[in-house]
């Protein structure tokens, strides 16, 4: 993939990230998401002399550099008149194009979690595991440069890839990647920072093993919110038991389902048109019968005049089949029957409708939310519960 092209350190050197700041035009070796189709977006960094080759044609990197983000770029090949769009990275577009290493948290879930956990610029967040770092990008965009994300991954190759990607994207000042199993060792970051998170996101096979480790790494001054992301109900139940035991409150479990609708056009087919078409068919059948009867009559009445009668009725060889097929139903054809009509084609009446996408993502995971109040100062000054 083009993203692995030697991009040296240019993009990382100035420490700006397209996920944290907007650019108008594409800097040399700046991250671009090349949009080919809805399901195919390729991340790349344009460098002189390289090109992107696709089934829509080839695209020179040199023509991307200094172009505005959002540009529709035509293929440089003369045979293929395809084009691509050069898009500015966003966490949402990135989640559609990123190299999947694990099942990712999709935007409908991710956006709801950010909203419910009250993630704000400057927030401090714990995430475990990092996975494909898709949600990490969404978190980083929102906590921004004054915030902090401590993300943990126990799978070493995934951790390495995520760490490299975070650095590549200029997010390493905000996102601290650590390798380790939080269920066993707790939340020990690779950096020497003291964790005081006010939001926690756990996407782990056994979040209930990690929850007891949280108390020491979350804020002691403010309310702390958590979201556990689990695909199975059994996981949810154990998670809830653990949250209750650890004093988390207002425990709530929900599921997000998101439908994608397509704007389509449906032909307006009026019953009256069907009736008119049938009337037309009947009329022409009757006409055909009438003609045939007349001809028969003429044949019977005047055998000698057969050839003459045929000439009068302008009979063609096709007419000979009239008894089998007395009409062609194409005279009155309001809906283009038998023709290939494209959706929305001129000459027909269309209604704007919506249809749900073919494949429905009907279950991603259950989201368990809760909050932990700050420790209470007892009357004797002690902290903690009864």
């Amino acid at each position: 993939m083009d993203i692995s092209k030697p991009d040296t350190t240019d993009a990382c050197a100035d420490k700006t990230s397209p996920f944290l700041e907007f650019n108008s035009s594409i800097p040399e070796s700046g991250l671009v998401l090349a949009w080919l189709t809805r399901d195919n977006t390729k991340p790349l960094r344009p460098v002189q002399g390289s090109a992107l080759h696709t089934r829509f044609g080839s695209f020179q990197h040199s023509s991307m550099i200094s172009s505005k983000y959002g540009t529709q770029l035509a293929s440089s090949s003369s045979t293929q008149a395809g084009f691509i769009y050069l898009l500015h990275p966003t966490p949402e577009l990135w989640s559609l194009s990123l190299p999947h290493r694990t099942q990712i948290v999709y935007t409908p879930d991710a956006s709801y979690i950010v909203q419910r956990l009250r993630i704000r610029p400057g927030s401090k967040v714990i995430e475990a595991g990092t996975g494909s770092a898709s949600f990490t990008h969404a978190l980083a965009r929102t906590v921004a440069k004054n915030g902090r994300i401590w993300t943990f991954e126990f799978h070493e190759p995934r951790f390495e890839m995520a760490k490299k990607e975070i650095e590549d994207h200029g997010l390493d000042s905000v996102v601290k990647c650590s390798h380790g199993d939080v269920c066993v060792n707790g939340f020990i970051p690779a950096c020497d920072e003291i964790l005081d998170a006010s939001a926690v996101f756990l996407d782990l096979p056994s979040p209930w093993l990690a929850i007891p480790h949280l108390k020491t790494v979350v804020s002691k001054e403010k309310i702390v919110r958590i979201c556990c992301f689990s695909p199975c109900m059994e996981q949810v139940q154990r998670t809830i038991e653990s949250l209750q035991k650890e004093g988390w409150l207002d425990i709530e479990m929900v599921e997000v389902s998101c439908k994608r609708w397509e704007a389509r056009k449906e032909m307006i087919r009026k019953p009256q048109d069907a009736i008119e078409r049938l009337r037309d068919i009947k009329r022409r059948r009757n006409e055909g019968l009438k003609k045939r009867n007349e001809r028969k009559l003429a044949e019977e009445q005047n055998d000698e005049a057969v050839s003459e009668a045929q000439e009068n009725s302008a009979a063609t060889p096709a007419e000979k089949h009239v008894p089998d097929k007395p009409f062609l139903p194409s005279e009155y054809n309001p809906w283009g029957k038998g023709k290939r009509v494209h959706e929305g084609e001129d000459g027909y009446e269309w209604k704007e409708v919506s249809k749900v996408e073919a494949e429905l993502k009907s279950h991603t995971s259950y989201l368990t939310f809760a909050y932990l109040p700050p420790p209470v100062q007892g009357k004797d000054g002690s902290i903690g519960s009864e």
Partner: protein
Amino acid sequence: MNEDKIEPNSYVFIRLPSATLRITKLAPRSTIHLGKFGSFYADDIIGKSYGYTYEIKDDKHVDTIYSSEGLFPSSTVDADEEEDGEETENTPVPEEKEVGTNENTRDDPAVQKLSMTDIEALKKTASGEKIIETVIKSHAAFHKKSVYSQEKYKRRKQQKFLRRFTPCSVGSCEIIEYFQYKDHHRILELTSESLGLILSLANIRPGGKYIVIDETGGLVAGAMMERMGGEGMIMFAHENEHPNMDVMKFMNFPEALVAQMIKTINLFELFYPEEEEDVKVLSEDTLSKMKSSRRGQYYRRLARHVELQSIFQHISDGLFDGLILATTLETKPLLDRLIPALQGSRQIVVYNTAKEPLVATSHDLIADLRVLAPTILESRVRKYQVFPGRTHPEMTSKSGGGYILWGTRVLPSKVQAGGKKRRKPNAPKPTSNGDAANRAKVAETWREEPTDAVL
């Protein structure tokens, strides 16, 4: 907008054991009335961190509930936590043999030995928990109930008698929760899942310059402010003479911050900037002779004029980083006016309570080519009841949530003056799955080869 500590004179969202929600302004030295849950002195909680739950005492002062409890005393689910030995037979462990049924349940008002007057008398002297305990003890058939229905009974009594409350900072989530039950229409039926999706798709973040048309009383703009951390700008276009931010006011943003970040413009100004009259600049001499009130008025007009000119400049330079429409106004003319104000590869998000207007807009955008891959999304959250052995989706949930149209502003290499598209004889046919973007893309290839020219 302090979300950590309760500040004087801020609006506070109050959660009560019953489903009732309140938003109250905490003036110092005031008494806050919570109806049947009692009244308390605001000063008792001003300055405290958010997140605590309080119990109202008879003298209107409050006690902080220890952190292992929230609005409801000791978990109603976990049997291990139960300390009372005598309760063990009723502990709600969901084992088959202990799960009672309603086989022997009969409606009989006589099972409750306490009369209304007894309870009223109790309310005057006893704490909420004591009342509940007494009510349960006086319930002759309580032990006949299944463990589940015992819990439900207890929870109902708690909702009625507990004098607890939890103050929360008022953010966009709390606003939604509040209006969902009160007047959902006022915030265009927005839900947290839809609002969250709008903010993410529109790529709202610190430092961005965004356009919003917000008919939710400023909820959407307020939620954007939450995500911007005081950096960036929101152009707030509105249909009336004055912008409506009645809902946003609950979110406790300092006035100066709102003035700094939100630039308002009405639709007349937006569509007819040339009709904006210049303010005649007055000399120092003239000004010094003016009455101070007239002079103040003059300076305000001048400042507004300068601000408007800078907004016009931003629009004509096309410098904005995103667009959110949450309005009942017809979308197309608004998009026609506002799309050119956006930079390339910026997000456009249109929210509506109904899908049909978005379908129409989607078709407009497919023909437009300045917006890539318009997609309509419908996000819904379903809440579950989760108790061991009794997990299921909740029986009812609030409707609302609307629909979201999302697309990306792009810069087509050749702008087609939105007319009919003519297909070349051998042009590829639109994809049968009706993928809007693919069709737009196909439509594009029907025309002559795109040039390399970049707008």
